[in-house]
């Protein structure tokens, strides 16, 4: 993505009194947590007309800082110490009613999940109107006009129509624009945006980021922008604050943090940022482990009568093949059909048409026990390592279960599970523990071990690293490459992140509206994309052209 503002952008008046100041803010964690404080002794300024990016990995205390500032913490965590100074007052010592008058009016917030942050029961217009009517006594028609003007400002198409639409009728990007309109309704001095683009596609993310910068310039709003993505930081930040374990590690202007970080932790984080560094495909040989020909999946919905029936082409005429030891990436925006494609291949969803051959066997023709036997050849690793392991099953048993089902003796299966735990970098002694005792990255290692226990010819990784922090993401990608080199399975790697795809794949297919529109080796595809869609995706990658660290 091109730089959205010039290098001298930070128009922060030096020496001016800060708009918002956190003074030694500490937020306690409930007893029994792994550390006593979620945020500890945070001292930080936010200036007017500034985007301050708060960066850190999960559990670093960035969201808690946001919630504390808005007064949204509950239970034990609401007993904060230190001060949050705004407009000459300490927010933390205000009476609830006095604070409520500021919340939403002078300080406002945008959340990570745009669709979930709108109430499904009310129209978009009603929800933005509510922000205004809560804090003022303006007459309804005036409020309505104001809301329509706001929708115009956040560049929503057809404001009138969006006004009457319910959240489920809007896309994620549109919902986020509605949320931003609501947050800006009363021209707040401070806007807190907690990972506002993380749930969105790259192209939508790029639009929202540029919108935020326009708003900063037009309204002189101080924006606290929370993100884990240094690509986003490089696009939007005036200053960057890095947090770890609830403490501030380093703060400075964007260029200094990105190019000349002082703290080791910042350096580690920057080094782990996936770069758009397309590699050449490795030479592969042998018969394909997966051959897909003209695969289509059509969803039909609606009732018994013909005219109410609707059809959605989720996958249309997709063909691809993967050889042993090769990784094929499938990239595209949400709704492009990449997950449906992978689910059709393993018949979690039955394809409508086409042919799937796994290790030379016609996979779609199989039934009953033959199908169950053939399922051994293809295994899958899911996106969310927290929900894809049975919480009541010991991880050793989870790994051994597959081999046992397919006829291995318990002793052999246990041996396999211990070997695999070692192979994915965990202590075999851990076999007797339960999933909740492991971190997200460790769980994803366990899922990989479980998938490999049956020695599959084909491994499907569906967004398998997108729920992980960048440093963990880098480790898991490395592990997958190493194990693949050793065992020689073919891999179908589904991802929305072109940076990740560029690093791990030998070939990449770009999907749009159910079709594979373009494919090729990453270095060729990225340097010489034929399709406008592929070029748009590449251009939208945050921090694409930048070298970090």
């Amino acid at each position: 993505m091109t730089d959205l503002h010039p290098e001298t952008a930070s128009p922060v008046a030096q020496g001016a009194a800060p708009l918002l100041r956190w003074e030694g803010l500490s937020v306690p964690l409930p007893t029994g947590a792994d550390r006593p404080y979620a945020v500890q002794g945070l001292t930080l300024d936010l200036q007017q007309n500034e985007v301050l990016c708060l960066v850190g990995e999960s559990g670093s205390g960035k969201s808690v800082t946001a919630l504390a500032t808005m007064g949204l913490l509950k239970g034990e965590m609401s007993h904060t110490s230190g001060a949050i100074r705004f407009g000459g007052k300490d927010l933390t010592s205000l009476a609830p009613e006095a604070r409520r008058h500021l919340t939403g009016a002078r300080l406002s917030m945008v959340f990570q999940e745009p669709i979930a942050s709108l109430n499904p029961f009310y129209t978009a217009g009603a929800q933005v109107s509510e922000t205004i009517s809560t804090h003022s006594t303006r007459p309804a028609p005036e409020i309505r006009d104001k809301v329509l003007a706001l929708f115009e400002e956040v560049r929503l198409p057809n404001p009138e129509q969006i006004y009457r639409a319910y959240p489920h009728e809007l896309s994620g990007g549109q919902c986020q624009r509605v949320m931003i309109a609501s947050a800006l309704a009363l021209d707040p001095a401070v806007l807190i945006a907690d990972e506002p683009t993380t749930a969105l596609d790259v192209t939508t993310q790029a639009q929202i980021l540029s919108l935020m910068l326009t708003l900063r310039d037009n309204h002189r709003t101080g924006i606290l922008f929370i993100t884990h993505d240094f690509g986003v930081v490089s696009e939007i930040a005036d200053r960057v604050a890095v947090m770890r374990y609830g403490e501030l590690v380093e703060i400075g202007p964007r260029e200094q943090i990105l190019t000349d970080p002082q703290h080791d932790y910042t350096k580690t984080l920057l080094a782990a940022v996936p770069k758009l560094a397309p590699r050449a495909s490795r030479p592969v040989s042998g018969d394909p482990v997966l051959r897909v020909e003209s695969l289509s999946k059509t969803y039909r919905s609606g009732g018994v009568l013909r005219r109410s029936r609707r059809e959605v082409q989720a996958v249309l005429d997709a063909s691809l093949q993967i050889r042993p030891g090769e990784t094929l990436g499938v990239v595209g925006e949400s709704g492009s059909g990449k997950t449906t494609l992978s689910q059709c291949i393993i018949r979690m969803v039955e394809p409508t048409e086409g042919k799937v051959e796994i290790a030379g066997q016609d996979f779609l023709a199989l039934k009953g026990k033959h199908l169950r036997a053939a399922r051994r050849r293809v295994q899958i690793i899911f996106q969310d390592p927290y929900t894809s392991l049975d919480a009541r099953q010991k991880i050793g048993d989870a790994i051994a279960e597959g081999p046992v089902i397919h006829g291995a003796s318990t002793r052999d299966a246990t041996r396999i599970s211990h070997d695999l735990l070692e192979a994915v970098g965990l202590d075999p002694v851990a076999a007797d523990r339960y999933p909740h005792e492991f971190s997200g990255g460790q769980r994803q290692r366990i899922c990989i071990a479980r998938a490999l226990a049956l020695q599959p010819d084909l491994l499907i990784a569906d967004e398998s690293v997108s729920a992980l922090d960048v440093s963990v993401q880098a480790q898991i990608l490395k592990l997958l490459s190493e194990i693949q080199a050793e065992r020689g399975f073919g891999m179908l790697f589904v991802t929305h992140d072109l940076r990740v795809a560029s690093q791990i794949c030998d070939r990449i297919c770009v999907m749009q509206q159910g079709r594979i529109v373009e494919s090729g080796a990453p270095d060729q595809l990225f340097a010489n994309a034929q399709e406008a869609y592929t070029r748009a995706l590449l251009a939208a990658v945050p921090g694409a052209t930048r070298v970090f660290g």
Partner: protein
Amino acid sequence: MEFWLARTVRMAFTLFVVVTLTFVVLRTSYDPVVAMLGPDATNREIELFRERWNLDKSLIEQYLTYIGNALRGDFGNSFRDGRPVFEVIAERFPYTLWLGGVSYLFAVLIGIPAGILAALYRGSIFDRAIMVVSVVGFALPNFFLGILMILLFALIWQVLPSSGASSWEHVIMPAFALGLTLAGILARFTRSAMLEVLSKTYMLAAQAKGVRPARRALFHALPNAALSVVTIMGLILGNLVAGTVVVETVFAWPGIGRLLVSAISSKDLAVVQALVFVIAAAMVLINLAVDLSYRMLDPRTRRST
């Protein structure tokens, strides 16, 4: 339009299955003659009785006649006194409607607000007290509660009548015995539905807009929680029917619950069959009402109607 067509066909089919099943089960499982005429009846009397009620025909023939009549709204006459069954039922139905209505109103007016308050003040003494009462409410069998109340209020303190249905005072105890269980169930479900909604991001977003706490609870949380509460309200109406059988017997309340019990014990097949049909029809209509209110409440389904 299509929705109505599909629903009507499904409702009719359900009722047809119910009518057929009760017919087959009742007519094959026992012979009503002995129960009706007593062990001393002569062969001649038995023969006449069979002829009178068509019991001498084959089962298929009886069934076809029955269905044919039923389609015209004629469910036959009571074996016992020869009156049309619907006349018998119509006499009793208003009493059950009265008792059921009062208990349901009690359950809804007590159970739902209690559940909402328990959720809003989760973990407080208030929440725990409501939950204890609701557990007691649905752990106590209603016949036991009924007998206990008769003992206390009618026999010992003598403030309420123990049986019958001649004044509004008569309805208090049976309605309470029937409604307490339902209020308990409703309170628990409302509480958990509210708790789930309260944990949603949009509730946090409403708070971040500065919306007042009371408005957040009533305008943001409640309508969303209502979607699951309405389902339970429908199920509870079904429970009510089962409950009336017991409670009406305990309090000698002249409703259809008690009619059903006495018709079964005297093997008055025509009455039993018609009652089962009426109850099934009521359940089907309740289900329809739940589905309709669901569609009206939820904007995600409202547009497609």
